[in-house]
């Protein structure tokens, strides 16, 4: 049996997405698009001179998985440094393709581990990772990220 995809945490973040707004004049912005399902979002971040992410937010439309993932990502990034964000990006990527098992491998994912079962739904991995790729793109100054 596959692990339940629509866990309460994910459904709750879909219903009440955190940081669902635009940051005017953000230091980092990128647009993410998944042409396969039409998911489309923008990620905004304000990074200060010390490399700390002071604020993170997102806007756009998408399925419950992509929305919940963006909501949880922006929540977990606030207060982290850009270097820590890069580490989280790598860990989250490994998590959603099933290469990182949060229960027995050290990681910094905390609540994000709720996405640990998604590798069993290959068609949905891109939904969970869209906001992360977009965030990563904003750090690399890539304006538009496509997951296709």
């Amino acid at each position: 049996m596959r692990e339940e995809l629509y866990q309460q945490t994910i459904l709750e973040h879909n219903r009440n997405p955190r940081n669902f707004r635009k940051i005017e004049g953000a230091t980092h912005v990128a647009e993410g698009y998944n042409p396969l399902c039409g998911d489309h979002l923008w990620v905004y971040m304000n990074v200060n001179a010390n490399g700390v992410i002071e604020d993170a937010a997102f806007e756009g439309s998408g399925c419950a998985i992509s929305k919940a993932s963006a909501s949880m990502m922006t929540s977990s990034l606030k207060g982290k440094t850009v270097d820590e964000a890069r580490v989280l990006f790598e860990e989250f990527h490994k998590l959603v393709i099933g290469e990182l098992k949060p229960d027995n491998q050290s990681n910094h994912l905390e609540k994000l581990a709720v996405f640990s079962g998604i590798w069993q739904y290959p068609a949905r991995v891109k939904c969970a990772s869209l906001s992360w790729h977009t965030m990563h793109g904003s750090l690399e100054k890539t304006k538009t990220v496509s997951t296709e």
Partner: protein
Amino acid sequence: MTFDVQKLRQDFPNLSVKVHGKPLVYLDNAATTFKPRCMIDAISDHYSRETSNVHRGVHYLSEQATKAYEDSRQTVKQFLNAKSTQEIVFTRGTTESINLVAQSFGRAFLKEGDEILISYMEHHSNIVPWQMLCAQIGCVLKVVPINDRGGMIWDEFIRLLTPKTRLVSVVYVSNALGTINPVAQIVKEAHSRSIPVLIDGAQAVTYRPVDVQALDCDFFAFSGHKIFGPTGIGVLYGKQKLLESMPPYQGGGDMIASVSFAKTTYNVLPYKFEAGTPAIAEAIGLGAALRYVQSIGLDNMAAHKKDLLEHGTKVLSSIPGVRLIGTAEEKTSILSFVVEGIHPHDLGTIVDQEGVAIRTGHHCTQPVMEFFKVPATARASLAFYNTKEELDCLVKAVYKAKEIFK
């Protein structure tokens, strides 16, 4: 013959598969259809007994394979009621058929400023080849708008037929909406202005018998895999005179009469358009699939599907929060819908857990999604082997999704 759906279902081995421990309910027939045993056997027999190239060897197997391949062309000719097998070109599918017309007919006979007319409900495969042609030679793509039920706006079609229109290319049955376009009238109007017409028949060949002579269309394209045949094989029908006047699409073996470095002459129809070793087994499979369809009768299938469509429309629209997308008066058994508060992708995953296979997404018709202001839809598309009970399974699964997302 009597139409016994339970008996006919036994012809399709894939229907008895279980997914996630539940009996499969396959409602994604507009994407591709399941294959009857006789079609699978035809391919298997070819590879087991007569593997050979066609139109080349004088040995026994090559003669057998060539005969089977050409018999399939004869079957297609009868299926479409074409005048001659010379008008039946095997391609990889509808997409390649349209690309062939765009690159061969389009590049030879269209010039800068000429117009190609399509509709708003085209599949990307009847949009992008024309955009590519426009970029190459500077012709212009014009689009007939649709109304909010998903029907073509007739007055706009007439208005957009201008002295510059050189080709009309329209879908017969919309894969995203199920809309049936009045192709016979479209051909009539276009021909009265001497404009040739291509019909994208990918979803139409399972809807009703097609008679290209009665329709009088100039080109007709369809894919094997959407009519119970294999993937990788399709057909371009073209009127003989037109095909003869067109340059080859690809160069290579089989499409030539003679080759020298000084001058190469091309083969006769339809081989001029079939460069290289064709999809032999797939063509043979397509022939078997079409004969299977004819043995049951498209009219019998259509009558059953009409019942299914009525039932499906009723039970789906009775679910609170469900909105059907595409409610044209004339439509086939395609049910596109959205559920309030549930993204189609989430819906697709949840109903899949219940064993129900539907398509979710933009169905390669992004302009249609934009028109209806939805990012995507869920789509149940029915074949003659589906049942009302299966539609009820879909409804139950949608309620399950509503429960999760309440």
